[in-house]
């Protein structure tokens, strides 16, 4: 079937099998490999992207369901050479260790800050409950998200 998706602002159109997962589509058809496949069972959140501005786990969505939607991946977050505040905050606050969960963690945080612009630490911990970090680097991830909220305000 033919699908057309706007990915990171660019129009994409491909013929796909109906069973193609969104993460597979992004990585294989669009060659955007920043989005990772982690558990592949919608538990870990490594594959989190934004669909029409909201975080979703792209391993548990068909590309066909995103037909006509606006999808944003980690590659689309920066404005040219200027990082998104969440990326900047993860850099400054050491919000990553091995980095495998980072793309999903950052996208989940971007979505969270759209819904709760001035979160408490509790809000952040609840807000990223769908994203697992096997390095258990949660402390600095939470610090990063809180710092990003401050950066976005100023």
């Amino acid at each position, binding site marked *: 079937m033919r699908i057309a998706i706007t990915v990171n602002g660019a129009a994409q159109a491909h013929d796909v099998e109906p*069973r193609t997962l969104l993460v597979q589509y992004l990585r294989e058809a669009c060659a955007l490999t920043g989005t990772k496949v982690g558990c592949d*069972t919608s538990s870990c959140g490594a594959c989190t992207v934004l669909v029409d501005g909201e975080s*979703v786990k792209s391993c548990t969505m068909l590309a066909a369901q995103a037909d006509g939607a606006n999808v944003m991946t980690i590659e689309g977050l920066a404005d040219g050479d200027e990082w998104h505040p969440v990326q900047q905050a993860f850099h400054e606050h050491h919000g990553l260790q091995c980095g495998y969960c980072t793309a999903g963690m950052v996208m989940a945080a971007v979505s*969270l800050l759209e819904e709760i612009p001035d979160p408490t630490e509790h809000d952040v911990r609840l807000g990223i*409950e*769908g994203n697992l970090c096997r390095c258990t680097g949660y402390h600095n991830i939470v610090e990063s998200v809180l710092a990003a909220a401050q950066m976005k305000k100023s």
Partner: protein
Amino acid sequence: MIPAAFDYVRAESADDAVAQLAEHGEDAKLLAGGMSLLPLMKLRLATPTVLIDLGRVRDLSYVRDAGDHVAIGALTRHRDVETNDVLERECGVIRAVAAQVGDNQVRHRGTIGGSVAHGDPRSDLAAALLALDATFVAQGPAGDREIPASEFFNGFLETALAPDELLREIRVPKSGPNGFAFEKFNVRAQDFAIVGVVAARADGATRVGLIGMGSTPLRATGVEQALAQGASPADAAAHAAEGTEPTTDLNATPEYRSHLARVLVRRALEAL
């Protein structure tokens, strides 16, 4: 993991979905948010030959004050339930339970109707709707049919919905903004409850729904009867596991689940 191949069609409306179900037969499945069905398809535990995507049927996404009850469109996402003002005012328990389904990503996609129609005994919302005596409106080729929650859940992943029926609306009697408690016991925050309890006061009685205590969501009838006869929360909670048939899995034995039910019911009743 990739699902087995299937034909993909889109429904444009509820009527269209019912017509397509009739056309494609029993091997067709309706796809709402996909948070339950797609994982099953990826594991190839479900292999529908036709998937009818309801994602474009936006007129089944609503929450309406309907006098003595709140009407919720089956395709209303958990996110829209948890942030809804009408529900916060008229049926706070449903709003609060929806806010703890899965995680943000799941709540952005998953729908209340999809969750209920899946018939999972671990569904928080199913137990809450059962406790509140909700009514499910099914649309089939012959028109609409109302199914009381007490007759809806037939077995593990089995409901009273016929293969040619679409769950269209959920009607929840008003129970007010407060007067409820939700206890969810799990290992990781985003997980299904190993055991969960929804307790709510409505119409002068206390209703108690159990999550994860059998092959369907259950009412703790022994607890409700004890409370009606004036038992204290602690005494009533001793009846929490009566009539249940909890299963064994990686997380818990039946004995442990029964223990959890008694503890969580007591906590919920004391918090009411």
